[in-house]
């Protein structure tokens, strides 16, 4: 039986000595990141790692500052984000209506499920050659790959959101006088909504994962291009700058979307 008292989101670690709350967690996270950076710096300095292959954090930072100064990092990041957002938008526009249609009809579901299950395991990267043939080596092929990558998480979540409507909610609304349209607006949509938002977040993560691979195709800007170009010119520090930028961007976006998700579907996170 669920209690009505305010329950903690996660039980405290049973053997935790200090009262490590939200701030304690942040401190621990910062500590571990700092420790890794220090170890990495020491390892490079004393040449435990080959500095040509693994530049020290200090060098990466220097390179990052240089890339920020000459504007190339900002430019490449902006180009990448533009592609991610465009591909993501395309995925949203296609995945949500398709997921809704399939989720709401058992017949359509039966027809499409085998096809979807066959398509789903194909990694987006495997479709790059095809995308080049179909869309050329310009923006379209990159956006298409990102859109394809982002499509499935959004689609699958949307589908289950519309499929998992609780029949008792439908019955309750009908006995309260809801019309078919009102059932859709007041029961089906609110049920599917949190799942769609979750799908969007996962889709956005996938868009970032696919981004670099998509940008390896003859591109002249973007973080993937930057990393690949740095490989050709053997500037490992710039490779690291590119990788870290993607990591930080992905982290920030995921955190932001998670926060957004918590806000707009508050009742799910009580």
């Amino acid at each position, binding site marked *: *039986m669920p209690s009505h008292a305010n329950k903690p989101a996660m039980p405290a670690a049973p053997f935790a000595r200090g009262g490590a709350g939200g701030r304690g967690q942040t401190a621990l996270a910062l500590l571990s990141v700092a420790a890794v950076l220090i170890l990495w710096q020491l390892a490079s300095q004393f040449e435990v790692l080959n500095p040509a292959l693994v530049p020290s954090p200090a060098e990466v930072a220097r390179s990052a500052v240089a890339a920020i100064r000459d504007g190339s990092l900002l430019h490449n990041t902006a180009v990448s984000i533009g592609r991610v957002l465009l591909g993501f938008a395309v995925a949203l526009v296609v995945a949500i209506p398709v997921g809704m249609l399939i989720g709401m009809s058992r017949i359509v579901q039966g027809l499409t499920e085998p096809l979807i299950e066959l398509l789903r395991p194909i990694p987006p990267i495997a479709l790059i050659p095809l995308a080049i043939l179909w869309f050329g080596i310009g923006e379209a092929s990159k956006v298409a790959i990102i859109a394809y990558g982002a499509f499935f998480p959004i689609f699958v979540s949307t589908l289950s959101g519309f499929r998992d409507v609780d029949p*008792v*909610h439908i019955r*309750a*609304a*009908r*006995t*309260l*006088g809801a019309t078919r349209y009102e059932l859709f607006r007041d029961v089906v949509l609110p*049920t599917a909504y949190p799942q769609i938002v979750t799908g969007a977040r996962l889709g956005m993560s996938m868009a970032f994962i696919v981004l670099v691979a998509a940008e390896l195709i003859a591109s002249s800007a973007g973080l993937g291009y930057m990393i690949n170009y740095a490989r050709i010119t053997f500037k490992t520090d710039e490779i690291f700058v590119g990788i870290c930028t993607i990591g930080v961007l992905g982290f920030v976006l995921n955190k932001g979307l998670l926060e957004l998700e918590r806000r707009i579907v508050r009742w799910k996170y009580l």
Partner: protein
Amino acid sequence: MSVMQAQGGPVAASRAHAPENAAAATSAALSIRGVEVRYGELLALQQVSLEIRQGEFVCLLGPSGCGKTTLLNVMSGFVRPTAGSAYTHGRLIEEPGPDRGMVFQEYGLFPWLTVKKNIQYGPRLKGAPAAELERIADQYCSLVGLERFRDSYPGQLSGGMRQRAAIARALANQPEILLMDEPFGALDAMTRQVLQEELLRIWEAQRKTLVFVTHSIAEAVFLADRIIVMSAHPGRIEHILDNDIPRPRDRTADAHFELCRRIELLFQQSGRHAD
């Protein structure tokens, strides 16, 4: 002794076979005439006839598989009989409608709405103005004792409180009839007793026609004016018992135990137990 006045099936059944004209049915809140429900091979309800008066508290009592929930769903309009028909206040029941409110064992509250918004849902659909919606929320939250939880979400409430909210939501829509499908079945024994008493208090204040499905003999005896004893395979009405034990009722009274015992014996005679 009031219990002795309880009628057996044949007497009640003859009364239940009302003439097939609508004028006679207008007096009854619910009129079930020769209803049969088949699910393929399975005969869920066989030749059920029953009249329920306005303001009456009726319990449908029986073991699982006796069709009591099916009968309730015929009344709500979720199940169309394969033969016979059901009327409410003289109108043929064809689909669910806001005149027949319903309370489910699984509560059926919308988890994305607060208690207040859940309660306001039906009136809001009808286009009630904002001030009226506020008044309704106030009135029905206090009716079920949830004033302090009006802004809570169902996920934050205990089972008993959820069912209070669900009852408030159904009543706030001003139905003529309240249909309850084992509403307290998922609650612990103590909460269950408290809610039974609350339900009686509300029913006595509002005098809605109330049809209550249960498999608990004691619950039916404590609550109902009339107990429809059903049996399974195929689902049918076995007996209709008038329960004249005076209200307010006492669970520890001899009359209460006597009627419980009588019904228990009925189930034993028909070879089936109601839990």
